[in-house]
């Protein structure tokens, strides 16, 4: 357990001393969402229809962007080797890393998303659904992404490959989350979709750390 606390603490300190780590995905999130009105159509009625989907796609891409560095530094400076050699539970460590990753990527995205909603004319009824779906959905993205990041940590060109591996697994999250926001916007019930996201999150917390821990060991057996 002490390993987990130490890892979490260290990762928070690293993020605080290197603001780019959490600020860049946030900037990316805002900029990508700004591209859609420019490229497709700035008409408010049209934008209010696609706003939920655009915000979710932007959040998904921003998360992917920040995943590449999740384990890379740990593999390169040998601290991962020390963690594995310590005999402590890798499951808990992976969970801790994913938690920190969510706190510096998913959580800020969730908090600034109402601003984007305003810019994209999101219907007033959809704000709560959007924030709720991001709050439940982005931890799933961090957890699934940690498997991909662990698999590609020791590859020199891991970034693009990581995207290829993880995007298909993100599609179900995207479908349910975007449909929750859309249904809220047209005044329908959306608790079913949020419940599905919650079920996915529970499953992801229980299972993905096993896969990520197994994948991390691959980086050492070279």
């Amino acid at each position, binding site marked *: 357990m002490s390993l987990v606390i130490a890892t979490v603490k260290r990762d928070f300190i690293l993020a605080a001393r290197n603001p780019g780590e959490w600020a860049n995905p946030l900037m990316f999130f805002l900029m990508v969402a700004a591209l859609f009105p420019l490229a497709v159509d700035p008409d408010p009625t049209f934008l209010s229809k696609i706003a939920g989907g655009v915000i979710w796609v932007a959040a998904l891409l921003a998360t992917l962007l920040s995943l590449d560095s999740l384990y890379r530094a740990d593999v390169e400076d040998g601290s991962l080797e020390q963690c594995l050699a310590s005999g402590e539970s890798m499951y808990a460590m992976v969970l801790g890393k994913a938690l920190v990753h969510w706190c510096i990527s998913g959580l800020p995205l969730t908090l600034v998303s109402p601003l984007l909603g305003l810019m994209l004319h999101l219907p007033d009824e959809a704000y709560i659904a959007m924030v709720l779906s991001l709050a439940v959905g982005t931890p799933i993205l961090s957890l699934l992404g940690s498997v991909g990041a662990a698999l590609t940590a020791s590859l020199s060109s891991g970034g693009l490959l990581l995207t290829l591996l993880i995007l*298909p*697994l993100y*599609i179900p999250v995207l479908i349910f989350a975007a449909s929750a926001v859309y249904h809220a916007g047209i005044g329908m019930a959306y608790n079913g979709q949020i419940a599905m996201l919650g079920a996915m999150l529970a499953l992801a917390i229980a299972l*993905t750390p096993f896969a990520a821990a197994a*994948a991390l060991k691959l980086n050492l057996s070279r």
Partner: protein
Amino acid sequence: MWQWLKQLYHRMGSPKWFYEITERWIPWLAIVAGVTAVVGLVLGLLYAPADYQQGDSFRIIYIHVPAAILAQSAYMMMAVAGAVYLIWRMKMAAWVAKVIAPIGASFCLIALLTGAIWGKPTWGTWWVWDARLTSMLMLLFLYFGVMAIQQAMESEDGSYKAAAILALVGVVNIPIIKYSVEWWNTLHQPATLTLTEKPSMHPDMLWPLLIMLVSTYVLFALLVILRTRNEILWHERKRSWVKKMMES
């Protein structure tokens, strides 16, 4: 029975035994696959009655459904073989998982393409963002991901393990595809074949489909065996039994 299965499993772990035993299977598998394909296609394309709604365009079902079923079961086989490698470090399992990936991806692509060709006359469009179509597309992407990580890893052992982990994580998609037509009210028709219920098709239409299904599975087995034999020869090329065989 259990003992025999266990023995077979342990023997399968020996590349030499696998290579020698499949030598005798190949002609039979090829004959069965060829004959059933000819019989199934002739019955399906010429003798089965036309559908009262879709006319003759429904006949593509004899390619589409077997390919789609196989694309999913091939993924499961790849994941199981990968798990066997992760747990028992059986090299044969890793080679089988490796050769299944491109074959499964091909069947998945065939299912998507024939589905598009079938969709044009019946739905009036090549592609819709329907739950089953989207989840089949996801399956294709998962196959591509497994193939991409196999290529990217430097060490051979690492590439097998990474592909196995990714394949196992991707298994969540299989029930989504399977039940997508039941959970969501979509354009794609419900499953044609179910193990538990009486088939909804006329027997004259059903038999060719079952024959084609057998044919596709046998073809798949044949392709996997042929490619696995290549892997065996390549990896065991420095062993004495391969050298002896090559000299004679």
